[in-house]
């Protein structure tokens, strides 16, 4: 459940990133169909149906505050606020599957490694 939820949230953030840059890539000469943004919004809507409401609410609140709700962790550092994470989080056995937030900024963590 949690593994899917984290992956779904990452996919959701990836859609939000794509929506934001559609015009930019179109200007570079890439094809972006007129209905492209609409299709992405639809995919976004379908994705949100699969995410638990409290978690989705958390994502939207974090997005409103920080622009990006999920931030990568490199080594032992949250790349959102650059705070070193405590050892118990770094060594968390299920950190790739669980929804874990940074104790410094509150954003959801995605471990790159």
């Amino acid at each position, binding site marked *: 459940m949690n593994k899917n939820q984290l992956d779904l949230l990452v996919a959701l953030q*990836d859609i939000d990133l794509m929506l934001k840059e559609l015009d930019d890539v179109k200007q570079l000469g890439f094809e972006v169909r007129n209905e492209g943004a609409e299709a992405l919004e639809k995919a976004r809507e379908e994705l949100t149906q699969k995410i638990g409401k409290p978690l989705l609410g958390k994502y939207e609140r974090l997005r409103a505050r920080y622009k990006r709700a999920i931030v990568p962790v490199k080594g032992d550092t949250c790349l959102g606020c650059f705070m070193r994470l405590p050892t118990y989080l770094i060594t968390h056995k299920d950190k790739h599957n669980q929804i874990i937030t940074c104790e410094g900024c509150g954003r959801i963590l995605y471990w790159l490694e």
Partner: protein
Amino acid sequence: MNIADLLGFLSEERFIPELKAKTKDEALEELTDLLVEANLIRNKHLILEMLHRRESVGSTGIGHGIAIPHGRTTAAPELIIAFGRSSNGIAWEAIDGKPVHLIFLVIAPPHEEDNQYLPMLGKLVEFLHDENNRKKLLEIKTYQEFEELIKA
């Protein structure tokens, strides 16, 4: 930014002179697998999902046998480029309807300190609009020849 900067994001390990892939999906997977093998990403499914979603918005086949699948994803640690070539060509629903022979995969994290992703995409498009560059890319055999062409 210069096209030679591309070499900072691509390496020999991410250079496939002849793709095994016969379809667009297979090509995306073959190139993404390189990133897994290089330990650059740990979840290829998230990358593939993003790339397929991007294709659903509009083909990344920009014509003249070129495709530049691209996108930002939370699962990318840095700006990464991989290259693959298909002598036979791959159907990509490109804007000119022609099969694709040269594929540059470009992925980037949500945020980069120096914002190189969009400028790099732009430089790549510009470089590949030149017919001579496309011809040479179809002829090169090794990564060293690729490097020389990009640096020239």
